[in-house]
């Protein structure tokens, strides 16, 4: 039985002989991703990824984290295949923060786990296998060429004698790292490319998985924090005496992010917080509201900004076009809303700090704790816990530093828990955005010019005046349009913003794929045919477009149903979707979504299918219902009654079709989020003639 367990790593190494094989961990980010400079490649090290116990247990040490996207299983497949390990002997542990072994930034962002570790983990597995063969050859006194491996054993090819990996582990661990080890021919893969069962399913089906919020320490106290409801505001004064009178409350303390209530249970802390009397200094954002923010961005998008793309002369081509089409699109702020609210457990002493956290960024978690304690980063231990969802929210580790502050105030280990309302009202949001498009068509209805002016808050850093994460999905469109201009003006209304699953593509693909649909409609052309012609030089996008059209029976929807199509190429993968919907008396139903995806070499088609389904549902919640709105500097939503998600009865049937490919793996966790909104809204246009230019659909008149 394969299991995912959390073992004491030092104890494990001490108790059992361990072999060592490790290689560099290369963070190779896609060219568009401007985080790349923060991820230099570390020098090769051993013992990074594989420990083999004398009991034949194989423990993979993964420098990533599990939020449902599947790296516990898929990265183990990479290691196990080249190591030729017995899948039933595998355990997984999450790596400690260790820059020497894993590089200066450990974390899970940008759908990069398989992309960046595809080669290093296979090389590591192959090195381990080579060392085990060498150790066996030495024991038998035969050349290594007279050995082979078979599912956790080294076999003597002359005598058929067998030695288990565990029996060879100690000898192998004393060997030097082999050089130039050959990787398998893909046709020999045993685990890679197969729908291998997830290693974490059983524990998750038994309620045994340890998420961050499940951490319990001896003598631990429980805490919540009251934070200023207005972004940027702070405590002016407070009176904690009534809170202290609540049974179970032990202490009330001001911390940099608000007022903490420390108690003997989470519930007592929450009751204590309700009894706090706080006067807030609401600061300069106290008069912000959504309408004003929308107007600010719209005004900004009336004027030229920093150029993100310029090919040909779009202004001139627009003047000479047979037909000119203009449209304004906008999208709201969105909250990540993972099911596990933010939380962090901390134990601090004078010379150490231990953190238990569901976090997407191990290194930043360590650094946040070091900063808050004044300790060196090396004095901080991060225990990576399973995440109850991440979606980008847990790449912002704001909950870590404040938990350390609370633990210091408490004088005992503390688990800080955010309520759902805390999470929704103090998130770092998918930014709201406005784009103003103009396009010119020639006499035959084909686009000769596209002009896009985007206004959006910046959250990922500026290069030459452009935040490329805020605009991605528009300047990088692959449609062949001879005159193409896009620019960007940063809006800074004061609402915190950050990466939200699939990032800028989540709004920009909605904008671009909807506007392209407008152009097709204006030309009287079929939306798939229109895209086909413009993608003649983009074979992978064209291929997924053709595949989805075929599988969805494009143009042949059942009576009363209507189809819409949209495509995207992000994170190194290519995705096309057709949504099939009906609108009856203004009521929308999404019946079916067909998705074709080309993400290069597939590691696990079952996990891939899960992720495609997951991204579609995540994007569909935003399409149908998602909006964070601001009034007097406060988020108006607080829980799932005001920020609802797609539920079982609204779930469309999803069909996934995977392109077989030998290309390098692309990402998958964010691949399917962007196209669902325009696929649905383009289908609404087909059904009703109404062009949807803003989201969400809730409260829009479709009758």
């Amino acid at each position: 039985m394969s299991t995912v367990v959390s073992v004491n790593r030092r104890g494990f190494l001490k108790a059992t002989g361990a072999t060592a094989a490790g290689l560099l961990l290369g963070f190779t980010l896609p060219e568009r991703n401007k985080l790349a400079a923060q991820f230099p490649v570390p020098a090769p090290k051993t013992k990074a990824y594989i420990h083999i116990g004398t009991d034949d247990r194989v423990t993979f040490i993964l420098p990533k984290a599990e939020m449902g996207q599947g790296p516990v299983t898929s990265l183990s497949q990479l290691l196990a295949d080249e190591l030729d390990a017995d899948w039933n002997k595998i355990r997984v542990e999450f790596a400690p923060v260790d820059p020497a072994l894993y590089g200066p930034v450990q974390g899970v962002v940008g759908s990069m786990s398989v992309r960046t570790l595809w080669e290093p983990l296979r090389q590591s597995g192959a090195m381990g296998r080579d060392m085990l063969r060498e150790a066996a050859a030495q024991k038998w006194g035969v050349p290594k060429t007279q050995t082979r491996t078979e599912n956790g054993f080294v076999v003597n090819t002359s005598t058929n004698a067998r030695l288990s990996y565990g029996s060879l582990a100690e000898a192998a661990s004393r060997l030097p790292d082999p050089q130039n080890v050959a990787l398998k021919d893909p046709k020999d893969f045993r685990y890679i490319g197969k729908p291998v069962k997830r290693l974490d399913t059983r524990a998750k089906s038994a309620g045994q998985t340890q998420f961050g919020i499940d951490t319990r320490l001896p003598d631990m106290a429980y805490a919540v924090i009251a934070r200023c409801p207005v972004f940027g505001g702070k405590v002016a004064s407070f009176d904690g005496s009534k809170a202290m009178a609540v049974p179970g409350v032990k202490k009330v303390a001001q911390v940099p992010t608000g007022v903490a209530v420390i108690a003997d249970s989470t519930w007592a802390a929450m009751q204590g917080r309700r009894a706090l009397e706080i006067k807030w200094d609401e600061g300069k954002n106290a008069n912000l509201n959504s309408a004003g923010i929308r107007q600010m961005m719209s005004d900004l998008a009336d004027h030229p900004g920093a150029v993100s793309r310029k090919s040909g002369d779009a202004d001139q081509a627009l003047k000479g076009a047979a037909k000119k089409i203009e449209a304004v699109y906008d999208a709201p702020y969105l909250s990540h809303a993972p099911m596990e609210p933010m939380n962090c457990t901390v134990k601090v002493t004078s010379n150490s700090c231990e953190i238990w956290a569901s976090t997407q960024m191990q290194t930043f978690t360590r650094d946040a704790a070091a900063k808050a304690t004044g300790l060196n980063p090396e004095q901080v231990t991060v225990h990576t816990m399973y995440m109850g969802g991440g979606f980008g929210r847990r790449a912002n580790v704001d909950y870590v530093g404040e938990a350390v502050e609370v633990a210091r105030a408490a004088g005992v280990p503390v688990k800080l828990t955010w309520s759902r309302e805390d999470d929704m009202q103090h998130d770092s949001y998918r930014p709201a955005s406005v784009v103003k498009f103009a396009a010119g068509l020639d006499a035959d209805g084909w686009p000769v010019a596209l002009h896009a002016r985007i206004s959006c808050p910046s959250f990922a850093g500026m290069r030459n005046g452009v935040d490329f994460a805020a605009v991605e999905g528009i300047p990088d469109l692959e449609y062949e349009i001879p005159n193409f201009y896009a620019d960007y003006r940063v809006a800074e209304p004061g609402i915190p913003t950050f990466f939200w699953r699939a990032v800028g593509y989540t709004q920009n693909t909605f904008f671009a794929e909807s506007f392209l649909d407008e152009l097709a409609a204006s030309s009287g052309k079929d939306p798939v045919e229109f895209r086909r012609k413009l993608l003649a030089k983009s074979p992978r996008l064209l291929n997924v477009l053709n595949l989805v059209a075929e599988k969805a029976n494009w143009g042949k929807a059942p009576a009363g149903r209507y189809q819409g199509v949209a495509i995207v190429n992000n994170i190194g993968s290519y995705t096309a979707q057709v949504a099939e919907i009906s609108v009856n008396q203004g009521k929308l139903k999404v019946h079916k979504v067909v998705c074709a995806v080309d993400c290069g070499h597939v590691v696990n088609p079952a996990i891939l299918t899960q992720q495609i389904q997951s991204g579609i549902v995540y994007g569909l919640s935003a399409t149908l219902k998602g909006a964070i709105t601001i009034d007097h500097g406060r988020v108006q939503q607080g829980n799932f009654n005001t920020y609802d998600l797609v539920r079982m009865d609204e779930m469309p049937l999803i069909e996934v079709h995977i392109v077989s490919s030998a290309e390098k793996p692309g990402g998958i966790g964010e691949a399917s989020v962007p196209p669902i909104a325009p696929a649905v809204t383009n289908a609404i246009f087909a059904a009703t003639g109404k062009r949807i230019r803003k989201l969400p659909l809730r409260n829009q008149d479709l009758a």
Partner: protein
Amino acid sequence: MASVKFTLNGKAQTVDVSPEMPLLWVLRDHLGMTGTKFGCGMALCGACTVHVNGDAVRSCITQISSVAGKTVTTIEGLSANADHPVQAAWIELDVPQCGYCQSGQIMTAASLLAKKARPTDGDIDEAMRGNLCRCGTYQEIRRAIHRAADIKANGGRA
């Protein structure tokens, strides 16, 4: 403070806590049973679902005093070896992604199957719409509930 006696996963249990404290926090913070999850605190997401006298209830809004004398089952008590038909189906079909909501999904599904041996898709919509899954595993949950019905009809064997 009040002393509340109830049956938890087949064993007699007594707790001394504030009578208004929700069952969720008694389970998680006082009894250390963390399989039942906190998601919303308002019975909007279903992550905290447990059985009280066999019915699926939201433990986040269930005051501990209201379960006095009753029988409470949590995910930890649903089966000895994660082999309840619902769990068996969940494992067979690899339903969980992040897994955080799945204790609640499984408890709601088990309650549904106890009442309807062969739930229709409409029954599943009705019973499960109170359980949110941010990873969007709904399609696999639906398949797994049908599969669990098969397993149960087959005497618990897969």
